[in-house]
């Protein structure tokens, strides 16, 4: 409740600030955006195409013990869909395991996924529309690794704030259906979106089961070939403020606009290996 004697001063301050925003170059918020519009811009943000990277995934348990997975990733856009091919490099017991995904835009069609198991010399189709499971033992779900359908969520712009000196929007997202909640494993999320480049740099996810929370944070954000890339991210699973497990995801050697052909994203290549 603001005392009435301060109102004229606040109104004057607001006008000054508003003029200031209009004058400042590169003002990213000259128009008022709704939460849905902001999230649409997050989705529409150019995340690069024909990309390769070396992904390092560090799994850290509550005692600080680490397990490390190194994965080489190829990705390519095919219209609105995304093709992705991953090969495990280390540790040795999962080396040459490959994972091929055709990530289709839209909710009508389930993604196609295949897993190559070197021990069996066999490619196995994975049927899992449910993306709430852990990605390779990490704190990231499969739903964290793919785009979510905006139409399946109700977004609310909570406020404007700052994260480490950078202006962000704080947005709440709640699944509209129980089905969506079951598929992602989350019943609510709050994300922090940078106002200058529409990158989600922080987030909290309320996990459906077990009263847990997952804290997502971008630790390093780099501009590579004109694309903002989160080169270091963490996902921390907590319960009652205690850390249960943490995953650090680092991206090295990130490159875009590589000459990747669609033939790369096939069972043929998956079985041949890197």
């Amino acid at each position: 409740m603001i005392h009435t004697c301060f109102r004229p001063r606040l109104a004057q301050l607001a006008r000054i600030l508003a003029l200031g925003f209009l004058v400042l170059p590169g003002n990213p918020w000259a128009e008022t955006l709704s939460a849905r519009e902001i999230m649409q811009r997050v989705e529409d943000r150019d995340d690069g195409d024909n990309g390769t990277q070396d992904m390092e995934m560090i799994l850290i348990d509550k005692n600080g013990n680490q397990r490390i997975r190194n994965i080489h990733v190829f990705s390519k856009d095919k219209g609105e869909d995304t093709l992705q091919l991953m090969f495990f490099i280390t540790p040795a017991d999962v080396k040459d395991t490959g994972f091929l995904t055709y990530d289709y835009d839209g909710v009508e069609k389930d993604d196609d996924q295949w897993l190559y198991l070197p021990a069996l010399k066999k490619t196995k189709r994975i049927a899992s529309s449910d993306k709430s499971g852990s990605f390779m033992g990490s704190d990231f779900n499969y739903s964290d690794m793919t785009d979510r359908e905006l139409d399946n969520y109700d977004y609310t712009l909570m406020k404007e704030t700052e994260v480490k000196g950078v202006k962000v929007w704080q947005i709440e997202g709640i699944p509209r259906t129980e089905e969506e909640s079951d598929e992602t494993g989350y019943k609510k999320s709050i994300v922090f979106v940078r106002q200058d480049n529409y990158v989600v740099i922080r987030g909290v996810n309320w996990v459906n089961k077990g009263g847990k929370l997952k804290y997502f944070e971008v630790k390093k954000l780099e501009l590579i070939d004109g694309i903002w890339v989160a080169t270091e991210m963490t996902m921390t699973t907590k319960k009652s403020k205690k850390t249960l497990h943490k995953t650090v995801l680092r991206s090295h050697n990130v490159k875009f606009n590589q000459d990747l052909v669609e033939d790369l994203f096939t069972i043929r290549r998956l079985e041949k290996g890197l």
Partner: protein
Amino acid sequence: MCLCAHTSRAQEELDDLLEGFEDELEEIITDQPSDAGPGLWELTGDLSVSASYAYAHTHSDPIKREYRGLAALRTQLRLQLDLDLPRDWRARVSGRGFYDSAYRIQGRRNFTDEALDTSEDELEFQEIWLQGSLLPQLDLKFGRQIVNWGRSETIRVIDVLNPLDNREPGLVDIEDLRLPVVMTKLDYYHGPWTLTGIAVHETRFDENPDFGSEFFPIAVPPPPENTPGNGGSNTEWAAALTGIFSGWDVSLHWARFFDDTAHLELVPAAIGPPRPQLEHARLTMLGASGNYAMGNWLLKAEAAYFDGLEYFVLAGDDKTRWDIMGGLEYAGFDDTTISLDVVRRHISGFDSRLENDPDFVENNRVETAFRYTTEFMNSRLRATYLATIFGTPFDGGGFMRLSCDYELRDALTVGGGIVLYMGGDFPTFEANRKNDRLFFTAKYSF
């Protein structure tokens, strides 16, 4: 006032919750793989120690094939050399060697020579192949290799090209289950279709328990086995047409090959009456298989028609058989996969004499396999339950296996479990019903 207080409290809770981000990340330094890219060659492998303990027999009596106590104490080394050659060609040479000191500990004199030859030690090449593209859409792979057909991970219907290591049912590491054979394999790719042609040059059959092993079903040595030579007129042939589509796939298969299961024949002897000998019939298979993904469900199906099956009591005559398998796999529970596969094998024009010694074949044989796999502790701990049971209603025998694997650290796992053998109408399973055992494995991969 109440609403404001509630809202204020909720906001405080939310603010407190949002303080859960760690502002300072401790520096985590790791050894990154070299940025120089893959080299010309790479040597990998694993070193493992495994042990098993047979507890169900009351005592050991080698004559009766009863064993109690330490059943295996095996040290195994597997090495694999991968070579990157020009123009995206590759080569692999791999081998395996093991020594099982349980025989020495238990006293080698308590085991037959055959059992010692088969199971005490081994040193062999496994995969040795050369692979590359002859044309942009045509791949060649030549050498000792494994080709895994079929959709089921447990039941074999169209998966007929590679023999199996059956020396210790339920205990063999899945990596060692299929035995590689020398093949020439050509794959032609056109859109979603792949046409495969295979010539199998090496004649190799299942490795079964040898006379004297606790898994060998009878107390007398088997007759000699006629093993056809390699290549030439004994070459086995196979072809497949596979289509991969969104949400489903289908494949058609054909093979002309030797039956891994031998049958008894009386063959003329140079002197004296005909003598018994184990022979491998030449079979022709036509088969099909498919997958259909539906949400969290994967539907699997395989069907095969076999011609040329031979049996002792039907000397000179052969039979045909239909194998039809249906399976379901469900992955809707977090970090858990459940699968159920059922196959029915039907012999056409069945002769009731086939049910007797030495053939022991049923008109309709049903096999059911159930697998439950789940992971805990961010995939550090993995538990698997596998049950394979024959007959309806499950009266033929089979085995159940419960195992756990724990990742101590990267590339180092320890595990163990129990295998329970169930007796039943099938003589082999009835003979093995008391071979229950506990097992333990430690494995380091490099």
